[in-house]
Structure formats: structure tokens, C-alpha cells
């Protein structure tokens, strides 16, 4: 009995100490940059953050991969230590998100273009090189296509059904789930661009949404968020195709190769000048109000946009980021250095 009282006392003390500890340090200002947002930008942001932390003056920023939309929501929720300082985005901020930011007092936003991202349409190294047009890809993937001026459920079962020049192989494409940024990019760069004029006019107002709708009859297989898994599946199945970020292609060149789109194979230069057709810019947004409040924020912007990182021989290119063309780089570098904000209206 007497022992028990002692035990209770010890437990009480531990609880008290831990409670005090947690809340004492919680009350302090945040000394770490917090970044949320796109999973596409995540690999690049993390590398920059790690290098930034290793320089020793500031703590390594914490980066959370929430997706572009989710990141925007968190980012625009307000000013203060409980809200992230930076959000990554695989597309430009939308007007709706701008309105949300303004409503919550996030008025001064710095836009930084990180670089370019290409999506590769890849297949196993065991199958011969391939070349597709965007329309062919759209026809292979869309839920509804136009045949002889009429909209029908996608009838194509073999590539050769779409175009006689294509191989007589069953269509089998591993697609990313609708939640992923890659899929978003694919929808806007391939599905909408490749959508035939006839189909667009037949879809009418809803053409943007309808063109992007993918077939669900088994020829397009959802393979999950995990791009590594798609790579493994492609390596195992020579008939299958799949699309994912350029960096995954680079990291797995021994197992897969990329198909040419409109005759262009993905390459650094091609993505940079958008001559490779499936390429897009990547962004991040920072809060000007947090500069000076969260230590290191300004320095981080500087480090991210430095030539060492983003430049044409920067370390980000090593992991698949396609650097900006020099004129565009100058704009973004200035924005980061001088904290140039964008117009929210």
C-alpha cells in the first residue's frame, strides 16, 4: 500500500513534468520553416530543405506532402505560426484559392516557379520503342470518343484499332488515381489537348471534364499513388504502359524506357522549352508576412532559387527537375530575392 502511494506520486510527477515541458516549448515561436503542398514538388523541396538545414544556420524545414489543393487550403487558412509558410504547387494558384487567401488575411504571396516537370509515358525495356500522338493517347484512355461523328463508349481494344500504324497489342495502361498531381497534369496536358475537335464540340460546355474522363472497362487500370509500384509493374509486363514524373523514369532507366510523344522523346532540353509535349511548370508560394517572423524563410527562398539548386547545372536537375529557361529564371530569382508579391485580384 505504501509502495503504491509512492508509485502514484512518481506517475503524477512525470505527467506534470511532461505537460509543462510540452506546453512551455509550444508557447515559443516556431523556429522551423513549414512547407506543405504538392507531392510533385515534394522531392525537390525536400532536397533543398535538407541542404539548407545542413548549412547549419537554420533548422531543416519540415515538408508535408498534402497535394496541391490540400496545400493551398492550409496555406490560405491564415497568418501565424500555426499556418505553413510555403505551399508547393504543381500548377498556378487558382482564383478561388486567391480569394480564400485574401479572406483569411494572407494578402502578400510570393510566387516562385521552381522549374519544369515532364511526364513520361513509359513501358518496359523489353518492348520496342514506341511513338504516340496526344490524340492517340486520348483515344486509348478516354471513356467516350467520337467515331464517325458520334460519341460512343470507347471501342478500342488494341492499339491498332486506333491507328493502323500502331502495334497490334492489347491496350493496357496503368494510370495514377484521380487524387494525384500527375493525373491532374496528365488530364490537362494530354486528355484535354488530345481530345479531338469533334468530340469537344459534341461534349459542348462540359468538354473539359468529359474529355478527361477515363475509361473504366479494364483497359485503363488504376495502379495507386505509388509510382514506384507502377514502375515495377511495367518492368514485369512488356505490354503495359504507364505515366509518371520524369524523375521516376530517370531513376529506373534500367527497367523502363519512355515512349516518344509526337515524335519527341523526353529530355531535359525538350521539357525545358516545352518541345516535349507533356511538360509543365512547377511552383511554390510563400507568405511575405512570415519573413522575419519565421527564422530562415528569406534565406530559404534564396537557397531554393540559387543557381546551385535551380540553375541548369543545379543539384535539382540531378533528380529530374528540368531547369527553367534563363529568362524565366531571372524573373523567378528576382521575385524570391526581392519578395515580389503577386496580385490576388
Amino acid at each position, binding site marked *: 500500500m505504501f509502495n503504491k502511494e509512492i508509485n502514484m506520486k512518481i506517475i503524477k510527477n512525470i*505527467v506534470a513534468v511532461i505537460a509543462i515541458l510540452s506546453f512551455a516549448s509550444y508557447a515559443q515561436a516556431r523556429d522551423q520553416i513549414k512547407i506543405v503542398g504538392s507531392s510533385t514538388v515534394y522531392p525537390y*523541396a525536400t532536397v533543398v530543405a535538407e541542404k539548407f*538545414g545542413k548549412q547549419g544556420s537554420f533548422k531543416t524545414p519540415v515538408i508535408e506532402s498534402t497535394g496541391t489543393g490540400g496545400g493551398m487550403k492550409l496555406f490560405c487558412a491564415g497568418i501565424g505560426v500555426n499556418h505553413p509558410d510555403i505551399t508547393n504547387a504543381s500548377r498556378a494558384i487558382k482564383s478561388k484559392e486567391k480569394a480564400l487567401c485574401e479572406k483569411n488575411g494572407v494578402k502578400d504571396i510570393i510566387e516562385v516557379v521552381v522549374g519544369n516537370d515532364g511526364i513520361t509515358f513509359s513501358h518496359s525495356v523489353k518492348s520496342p520503342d514506341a511513338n504516340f500522338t496526344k490524340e492517340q493517347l486520348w483515344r486509348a484512355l478516354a471513356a467516350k470518343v467520337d467515331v464517325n461523328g458520334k460519341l460512343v463508349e470507347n471501342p478500342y481494344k488494341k492499339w491498332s484499332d486506333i491507328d493502323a500504324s500502331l502495334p497490334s497489342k492489347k491496350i493496357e495502361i496503368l494510370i495514377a488515381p484521380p487524387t494525384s498531381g500527375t493525373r491532374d497534369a496528365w488530364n490537362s496536358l494530354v486528355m484535354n489537348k488530345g481530345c479531338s475537335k469533334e468530340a469537344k464540340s459534341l461534349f459542348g460546355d462540359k468538354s473539359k471534364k468529359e474529355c478527361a474522363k477515363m475509361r473504366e472497362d479494364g483497359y485503363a487500370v488504376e495502379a495507386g499513388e505509388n509510382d514506384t509500384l507502377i514502375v515495377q509493374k511495367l518492368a514485369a509486363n512488356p505490354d503495359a504502359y504507364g505515366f509518371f514524373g520524369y524523375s521516376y523514369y530517370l*531513376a529506373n532507366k534500367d527497367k523502363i524506357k519512355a515512349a516518344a510523344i509526337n515524335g519527341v522523346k523526353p529530355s531535359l532540353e525538350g521539357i525545358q522549352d516545352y518541345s516535349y509535349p507533356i511538360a509543365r511548370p512547377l511552383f511554390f508560394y510563400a507568405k511575405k508576412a512570415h519573413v522575419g517572423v519565421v527564422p530562415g524563410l528569406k534565406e530559404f527562398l534564396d537557397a531554393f532559387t540559387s543557381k546551385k539548386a535551380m540553375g541548369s547545372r543545379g543539384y535539382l536537375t540531378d533528380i529530374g527537375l528540368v531547369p527553367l529557361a534563363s529568362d524565366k529564371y531571372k524573373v523567378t530569382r528576382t521575385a524570391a530575392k526581392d519578395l515580389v508579391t503577386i496580385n490576388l485580384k
Partner: protein
Amino acid sequence: MTKEQRLKKRYRAEKRFKMYGLISVSLAVIFVLILVQNIFSKGSSAFSRTMIEVAVNYDSSLLELEGPINQNSLKDADFYDLAVESLLKIYPAKDSKEERQILRLFSPDYEFEIKDFLIKNPNKIDQIVPVKITASDDIDQLNKGNFPRDLPEDRRRVSNYQLNIYDNLIEKEKIDKKFNNYLFTKGDSRDPELAGIGGSLMGSFFTIIICLILSFPIAIMASIYLEEFAPKNKITDFIEININNLAAVPSIVYGLLGLGILLSVMEFPRSTPLVAGITLSLMTLPRIIIPCRASLKAVPPSIREAALSVGASKFQTVFHHVVPLAMPGTLSGTIIGLAQALGETAPLILIGMVAFVVDIPSSPVDPSASLPVQVYLWSEQAERGFVEKTSATIMMLLGFLIVMNFIAVYLRQKFEKKWN
């Protein structure tokens, strides 16, 4: 049917059933073995790290040091030039492109590794010393045999030039494998050869401690009250049903709760073990209360009667006798509850624990990842080195779960009284 036939039929039925049972058990065992084999075959190589021995020339003139050379001044010194100078000497390079390829044989941390070596051995200044430097992920994977080398160059991560250097180094026995202590001591990194689970381990540790501190006393008190003191009526029945229901609620719902209340309303810091611990303790509470109540119930009424009959009050009876006797069951229930919490990923994603955190957290309010989340994060990485790291983390996680469950079983068997 004769008696003999019926008898035979009975025995046959028994035999058949035994066989079905055996098949089921062996299927289960096979699945487990496949899982374990798969994880181990992928993950075991993560426990070693490829090192390249380089003769480093600690030339003090390259360090641009002002004043005396001591540990403090060395800490502030920039070793980049010194390091690059020494590394480039391992193989002749004819242009800067080749120089860059040489540097990429090494992990980006070479500068710090060379620096740390000197700080540990300050007497080596101005000497040429062989130092083992961590190889880059590509060389590491090549050395572990995970990259095939008989492919055309454009489909390889390692260029012909680098391959030449590698073969040359192998010949000179400069390439070595050693135990990968980085795996345990380092935080997350984008370079697989430098990435470790140290951060997520601490994150998980803080999370579980917070979860334990919150859920254990509350669960014990709740179950003691419900089991021993609460009147048996409709309200307590309703509470009991709800506890059972809560235990079955998918964990992600608790994540939403944490997001909605802890982060939005109470404004607790995101991505921290504090929030994760509170969220998981909400999830764990009903899962601990149920075994706690069961073990309280298992204490035979005769013990209560014995205490009451010598004049112990209800409170004394419960706290002097019933609770101590129920403790082993309670503890093992708690440990199993915590083990479940340890393996939980879904609620942590919602409260922002899925974050790239390099710094190892030193308190529950520092941002951090946790072990299962680390698995999730690394499984999505493009670099090949993370495949083995992912499996290694799974091995660690499984190890912790097995240890915790073993402790639970041990506690129960060792200390639980057998009531005849």
C-alpha cells in the same frame, strides 16, 4: 449401415477435418513466410553501407583557418575545397564533367564526414590519412548487386567512366561494406545512403509515450469505475455499447477528430508527436478499456468478498486487491493497444505527420514523422536505395510490434494468477 461402417465414417470425418485444419494453418504460415522473406530479402541489405576509402590530405592551408587549430575552429571551417581536392585524386579526370562524375560516386555528405574525422582526430592535421567515405546511392546499389551493369550506358544510372573507377577501386580493395549505423542515428534525407529512421523512431517514441500517459490512467480509471463502482443501469449499458463501438471505429476517423479539434480549434502545432499522441490515445482508449474491464472482471468475486469481510471499504477492496490482481491483464492490454497505435498510419496523415523531417525531434512538440509513416514516405520515393530502406523500416516496425506483443504475453503468463 453397420456399426463398423458408422465408426469408420466417423473417423474419416475426423481425419478430413484435421487435414483441413492443417492446410489452413500451413497456408497461413506460408503467407507469413512469403511476407517475411520478401521484406528480409529486400531490407537486409539496408543494414550495410558501402564505403570508399580515400586518402585525404588534411592540408591546413586549404581550410583558411585564422588563429589556432582546435576543435572549435575546425567546426566552423569549410572543408569543401579540402574534400574535393582529395576525392578527385582517386582517379584521373580529363574535364570538369568527369570531375563531377567522380564526386557523384560519393554521398553528398563527404564534406562533413571528412570534417568529422578530423574533429575526432585533430592530431591528423597536415597528414594524409585514409578515410572511409560513404558511397553514393548509385554505387551502393551497384555494389550490393541491385543494379545490373550489362546494360547500354544510357539506361544505367552509373556511367561507363564511373564504372571504370568503381572496378579500379574494387581492384585496389578500396571499397568496403560496413554496418549502416546511419540507419538508426540519422533523420530522414533525400539521399538514400544518408537516410535513417532516427527521427521517426524518436517521433514514434514520443507519440507512444504521450499516448501511454494519456490513455493508460484514463482507461484504468474509466474501466475501474465502470466495472466496480458504476450502477448497472441503462446509462452504463449505453456507455458500454459505445465503448465497444468506438473500438471498432476506423482509425482515420480519429485522425479527422484530431484535425478538426486539436489542430483547428485548439491550434496545437501540426506534425507533432503531441498531437499524434493525443489523437492516438483517443483511438487507443476504448481498445485499452475493453481488456482492462475484462481483466477486472476476471478477478474472482471471492477475493472481493474476502476483503470486504475483514472490513475493507469498497474503495480499499478495489485498490488493494482487485486492481493489483488485474494489473497484468491490464498492462498487457495496454501494451497491445499501444502496439496497435504504433503501427497506425491513417490518422497521422491527417494531422500532418507525413512530413519530411530531417532534424531528430527532441521534444513532443517538435515536428516529426513516425515509423509507419516513414515506410509510407519512403515507399513513394523514386531513388532505388529507398526500396531497401523501406523494407528495413518495416523490419524494425515488425520487430517492435513483436517485442511489445511478447512483453504483453510474458506479463500475462508470468504475473497473472491462475484461479482454480
